[in-house]
């Protein structure tokens, strides 16, 4: 279970972006988070991915309350959540090739030996051909780069996936391909999904349920 319980977060303590957001995602469930720009959806997604310390509230991941964030969070908790960001250009290290980008989580966690085989397994799953893997981010399109970023998020087989407006920059066919890749992965592993976005139609069709951020008031779900 991924539980966000009355979370208040922001970038300035006296003026949080949102207050008291509560949201729960069950294992294997896909939840869409809808809302207007600037209301704090991405900040909530960052809190759920252990990348942003909330000012108040709790995050409970698979029964463990998270007490440390970013580098200080235990590695096994951090890697339990795979994240795909909105803008692939800023989410990919411009100096690495696509293969290195995909393999980076394995190298970072001391599993270098598995890197080549995992890249070879993930690349076709997200629709990347072998010739693209040797290219650097500036040599591929946004769609191709976002496929690599999705593959990177799946490299460590996370139990949870957070897609923060993953398809906002992409055309319809790439959107469909990426959503299909996520769903195939979820069907194989039973991973839970939190998909953040603006596109009500897409999220309604993609997710088991959608939660709305109405009038800039965060979701307050209770289970």
């Amino acid at each position, binding site marked *: 279970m991924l539980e966000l319980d009355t979370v208040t977060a922001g970038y300035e303590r006296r003026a949080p972006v949102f207050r008291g957001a509560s949201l729960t995602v069950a294992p294997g469930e896909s939840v869409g988070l809808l809302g207007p720009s600037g209301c704090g959806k991405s900040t909530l997604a960052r809190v759920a991915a252990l990348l942003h310390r909330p000012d108040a509230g709790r995050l409970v991941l698979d029964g463990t309350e998270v007490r440390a964030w970013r580098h200080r969070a235990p590695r096994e908790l*951090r890697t339990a959540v795979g994240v795909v960001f909105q803008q692939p250009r800023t*989410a990919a290290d411009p100096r690495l090739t696509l293969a290195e980008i995909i393999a980076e989580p394995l190298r970072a966690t001391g599993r270098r030996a598995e890197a080549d085989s995992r890249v070879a397994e993930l690349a076709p799953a997200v629709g990347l051909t072998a010739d693209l893997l040797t290219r650097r981010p500036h040599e591929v399109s946004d769609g191709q780069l976002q496929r690599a970023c999705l593959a990177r998020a799946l490299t460590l087989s996370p139990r949870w996936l957070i897609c923060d407006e993953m398809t906002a920059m992409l055309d319809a066919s790439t959107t469909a391909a990426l959503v299909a890749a996520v769903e195939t992965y979820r069907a194989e592993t039973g991973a839970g999904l939190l998909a953040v976005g603006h596109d009500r139609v897409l999220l309604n069709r993609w997710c088991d349920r959608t939660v709305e951020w109405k009038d800039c008031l965060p979701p307050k779900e209770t289970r």
Partner: protein
Amino acid sequence: MADRRTHRLRLWTSAVTVGVILLAVLLVPPLVQLDEQAVDLSRKLLPPSWDHPFGTDDLGRDLLLRCVYGLRISLLVGLVAALVATVVGTAVGAAAGALGGWTDRCLMRLVDAFSSVPHLLLGIFVVALFRPGVWPVIASVAVTHWLSTARIVRSEVLSLRTRPFVDAAVSGGASRWRVTVRHLLPAVLPQAGLAAVLMIPHAMWHESALSFLGLGLPSHQASLGNLVQNARSSLLAGDWWPTLFPGLLLIVPTLAIAGLAGVWRDRLNPRRRSELML
């Protein structure tokens, strides 16, 4: 188009000048095997001629040879001091930017403390602690010049560490050390390298200033600062060449290295690169 021609002209002029200087300081001493300290009072203060293109000094020593040896020492001081200062500045700046919090505050207060003392004064204090020689001068220049690199690297790291690719690395299980070494440092190295290149002529000027003040290299050793210092009395007597040539050899490498650094800076900037159609 004219802009691109200027860029290429600057690149070639600077590269050829730096190449000639490097060839001279690397090849002339082992090839000619002449003693730059050899005194010949019968030839003192001869103006430039075919035998002595830069003339001779007040002890009859060939100035061209002394200038080459002096340039060699000054370049060595400049290169090593710039390298040490860049390594120290990059390490401090990266640690401050990547770790943040108290580490950042403490390191930046240290930088402020060093900056609050005029750096020539601090340099004089450092050389005064040791016997005159090349290494105290290098230490003096390095100790006073890592600050700007530390600031540049810190600000770059601070801006980079909030980028999503760093978040992705953190989420992928990377330690703080790995994020710094794998993602942040490679991104700031071009800026640090540019700062190092620009520091080389600056360090050469510092060596010359310290030697001119009698605090740098031993006075008998040929360095550009010592050559200008020794030539002061002859300048007042109307003998211009012992001052002019060492002075020019300080200015020409400075301009050439600054030219190369300018070319590098243009190439680092994507907008400038596309303007220049590189």
